[in-house]
């Protein structure tokens, strides 16, 4: 069964790469030396990643380069195989949005050995790529927690909702949050638990926390907006949203709407557009052997009711 699935996936990959190559051929003839960039994305089911990918597409069009985007469907193995086929196709540069810190590293090494520049976007691998474009997740948590600390006047009880345990984003956001907690001894971490990045899970978890801690809760920090939105729903249902501050990270459209309405107190904007366009820019420069930034960190921005207008399109 499993082998069949893999087999089917292989056939599909071959077919798709076949299509893309034929595209290359026809467009290559008309516009001469057109650069080809291969991109493998963590998951096209994730709204943030889709935004990054959309922006890459737009930027590639603007710069007149061919972009082949594939979905790794959260599988590092698949991602490595995709990079392998990019190398085989002889692309000029590769952009990888890594699935995992360790397991996606072989892809970086493969590309480096083949002398094809590889740019990691949004998250890191343990192997060092040609360049990294993204934001420091630790910083996003620091921004969120600093906001909480300020709002609470440095004193209060906080609950923290983790992402999938062991993933890079969860670990870094955890570190950043713990840093700020240490610096503010008045803040107490009542409990922490995973909501697995999921809205329904975040909601159930918050419901259970309300049973446990009730009026002791002053604030909730969720590692992403999905869980943050779930927390808001649960707090609203319990009628205590006005007593609890909720902050999360990512600034997805839903969360921006909530910030505008005042149900979600703040979110941290991770600039998907900027990451996407910067990744393409860096890839093109690297392919043309021009100078480029080795590490392009796109700054986060805190989004509150006051400035939410800038982020809503």
């Amino acid at each position, binding site marked *: *069964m499993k082998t069949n699935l893999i087999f089917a996936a292989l056939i599909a990959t071959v077919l798709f790469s076949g299509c893309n190559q034929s595209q290359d051929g026809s467009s290559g003839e008309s516009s001469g030396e057109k650069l080809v960039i291969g991109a493998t994305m963590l998951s096209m*089911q994730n*709204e943030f990643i889709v935004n990054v990918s959309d922006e890459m597409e737009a930027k590639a069009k603007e710069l007149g380069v061919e972009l082949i985007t594939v979905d790794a469907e959260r599988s590092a193995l698949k991602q490595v195989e995709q990079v392998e086929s990019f190398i085989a196709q002889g692309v000029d540069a590769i952009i990888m949005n890594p699935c995992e810190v360790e397991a996606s590293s072989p892809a970086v090494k493969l590309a480096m050995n083949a002398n094809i520049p590889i740019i990691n976007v949004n998250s890191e691998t343990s192997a060092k790529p040609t360049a990294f474009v993204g934001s420091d997740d630790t910083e996003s948590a620091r921004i969120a927690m600093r906001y909480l600390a300020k709002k609470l006047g440095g004193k209060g009880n906080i609950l923290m909702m983790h992402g999938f345990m062991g993933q890079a984003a969860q670990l870094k956001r955890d570190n950043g949050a713990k840093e700020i907690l240490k610096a503010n001894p008045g803040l107490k971490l009542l409990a922490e638990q*995973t909501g697995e990045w999921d*809205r*329904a899970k975040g909601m159930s978890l918050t*419901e259970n926390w309300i*049973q446990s801690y009730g009026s002791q809760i002053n604030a909730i920090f969720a590692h992403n907006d999905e869980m943050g939105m779930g927390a808001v*729903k649960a707090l609203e249902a319990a009628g205590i949203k006005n007593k609890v501050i909720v902050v999360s990270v990512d600034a997805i459209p839903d969360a921006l*709407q909530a910030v505008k309405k005042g149900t979600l107190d703040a979110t941290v904007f991770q600039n998907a557009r900027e990451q996407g366009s910067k990744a393409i820019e860096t890839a093109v420069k690297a392919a043309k052997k021009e100078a480029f930034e080795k590490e392009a960190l796109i700054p986060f921005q805190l989004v509150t009711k006051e400035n939410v207008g800038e982020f809503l399109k």
Partner: protein
Amino acid sequence: MLSTQNFRFTKVGQYGIYLAFLILCVVLAFSTPRFFTVSNLLIIGTQVSINALLAFGVTFVIITGGIDLSLGSMVAVTGVVAATFAHPDTYPLAVPLLAGIGSGLLFGAFNGLVITKSKVPPFIVTLGTMTIGRGLALIISKGRPVSNLSDTFNFIGGGNVFGIPFPIIILIVAFIVCTVILNKTVLGRYMYAVGGNESAARASGIRVGNVKMWVYTICGILSAMGGILLTARITTGQPNAGAGFELDAIAAAIIGGTSTSGGTGTMTGTLIGALLIGVISNSLDLLNVTSYYQQVVMGVIIIGAVVLDGFGKKD
């Protein structure tokens, strides 16, 4: 002497799951004062409702000797479909509900049709439709959550009627309807017959294919109800919602005494199974047990419940 002991042990096994559930509740009531409160019990009921609906559906399927792995994907498809029609000031409430339930019905009927016509085992067919469903949900939603839903729609997931959360009311109604179908209708009787001995059922003049069609269709409808409930609860239709839900639902049915070889099972057992799973995850959150341990505890309880159940059936 020996015989009376055997007798008692058998009895314990027969009611093992109910007993285990009772003991767990008593222990929890003593270990945390926050467990046995009206508000917490209502929250458990609400949290359990989606899994219970799916578990009811898969109980029918397992009783006929089948399995349905596409539950979670059906939740996603039906949720997204319902959400598409549930934006404020567009359609009356009936439209998203009928669209959601209708899509679940079609999905389930498709499962049933392929299984009865192709003779491919349900495990493989629904493994396929699980992937198909996930893809459909992404296609319909274009890969993005469908949000901005009307308040009337969201009421289904978050509203109260006389202080009772609406999902609990749906859960109770579904439980009663499913129990009646299983115990009081000819279809229910035929389900046990088909699962108990398919060849004998056919030789008794039962249209085995029809029974299976019904079972998978009902399972699709219940999944759709779960999908709508989830969508209304989190006020968004998410294409990646419900991943892994099928395993929780199957676990609830099995903990509740439904045999995977077919022919036995009750809705009451399944309800207790779903409640057991819900109570455990609720109480571990209340006790602030790390999620790492939660998963281990859950696994131990699933196996334990079935082992205990096995003692009652060994005879």
